[in-house]
């Protein structure tokens, strides 16, 4: 029906690999997209070298936001927090393998915004975090 909804997106939306919560965790953060009410929480466990060892997300939202969260967490396991801080918009689009208009881009970038706000230990997730 649509190339935007590539198999991998539908698949990860229906059967995410990283859905859940980590308790205890080293880093947690949550935020929402007020436009559509999508809500994402991300928990991370990080070892003594600052490497992400485990990751999980919870919340609700559209297929794009949920699939991008799942793919993003898969990609950050094994990365250092410095590498996570370096992630940007293009990394998400590469993971999803699609082009997105401005409205749906917000859905796709919500998880990255939440992840980076958590890693930076910020009080709130800013759009600046996901600009390339």
């Amino acid at each position, binding site marked *: *029906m*649509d190339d*935007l*909804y590539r198999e991998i997106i*539908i698949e990860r939306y*229906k059967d995410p690999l990283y859905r859940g919560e980590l308790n205890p965790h080293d880093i947690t953060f949550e935020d929402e997209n007020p*436009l*559509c*009410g999508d809500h994402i929480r991300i928990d991370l466990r990080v070892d003594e070298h600052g490497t992400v060892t485990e990751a999980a997300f919870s919340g*609700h*939202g*559209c*297929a*794009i936001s949920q699939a991008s969260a799942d793919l993003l967490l898969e990609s950050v396991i094994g990365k250092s927090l410095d590498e996570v801080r370096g992630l940007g918009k293009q990394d998400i689009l590469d993971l999803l393998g699609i082009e997105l208009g401005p409205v*749906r881009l917000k*859905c796709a970038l919500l998880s990255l915004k939440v992840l980076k706000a958590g890693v930076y230990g910020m009080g709130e997730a800013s759009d600046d975090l996901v600009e390339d």
Partner: protein
Amino acid sequence: MATSSFNPGELANLLKDFPILSREVHPGVSLAYLDSAATSQKPASVIDAMDEYYRRTNANIHRGIHMLAEEATAKYEDARQKVARFINAHSEREIIFTRNTTEAINLVAYTWARANLKNGDLVILTEMEHHSNLVPWQILASERGIRLEFIPVTDEGLLDLDAYQQLLAQEPRLVSFMHMSNVLGTINPASEIVRMAHAAGAVALVDGAQSVPHFPVDVQDLDADFLAFSAHKMLGPTGIGVLYGKEALLNAMPPFLGGGDMIKKVMLRSFSANSLPHKFEAGTPAIAEGIGLGAAVDYLTHTGMDRIAAYEHELTSYALDRLSEVSGLTVIGPRAELRGGVAAFTLADIHPHDVAQLLDREGLAVRAGHHCAMPLHQRFDLPATTRASFYLYNTRADIDRLASALERVKKLFG
């Protein structure tokens, strides 16, 4: 006997009046525009009236002595008279041009309410209101301690009039409510609600954003003190809306924005306000848009509001039937007899943004989200819905396309 709607020949001719309907949305994919509750499409006569104004008439109004200024003023004021006749106002002095419904409601909140409401006074709204009829009153509540109460919405999507009756015992000063819900489609019994408000000594404001475009609204029958609506939802342009107010009320109200055109006389330290309706229209208004609104009113009047209402009713009944055949789809709001041309729904647990995006790929323009009615969605425990809304230029074919596309969305998400 009920008013007849359009026969197939009339419908075919009518569709030709809307140039946008012939465009493709994606290569080879024609448009089925099902988002008229957000904004309507415009017939060529409206576009031409505005185009003609800029090509031949453009001038500032009310002060000019030259020919163009006189013509522009005449066209703009002619539009005001058309609007007055359209809703059966006593006089064009009762027609205040605003930017839109939102500004019309805010005008009442900033002038009438600030002059008349004090700490502890009660304003009654409803749980189904659009944000434009909630936030102005919330601002007023936090500024000067007025109280807000809400007529509850039943599970079927109707206002609970027994609960309203009980609220009226608290002697509200104002009852402000929507005539037709932009989400549930519910057509509220506006005359009755106004009558009850008046019996309790309250002023009544009707948000007509979804009603005035779709069925005959007569302010004398309604007896509303204020009626607010937008041109862009009734085949007219964006940037212009209307506040109707009873003349005595408008006369007693302080002005809204200050500036040119709203004054009779200005001294260095004081001014005297202009007479109605100009008292509430500071600065150069949306002249071309006013003229466009006049052309939209002509189109609606010529087509016949009774017939538009009858046609939309048939279409809505058909849509509710077709949508009910889609498994996993739930429409919120009342049965067809009690609603206008709006159907907001959920489709299994598929997010409305995904639904809307996939429908767009088939040329179907619908809206997804909370439709500026977050409290109403909370009332039904829904984060968001997908909404299809209809107008006179929609057809059964549009609805057939919608139903079959929804089946494909369902299949994709399995």
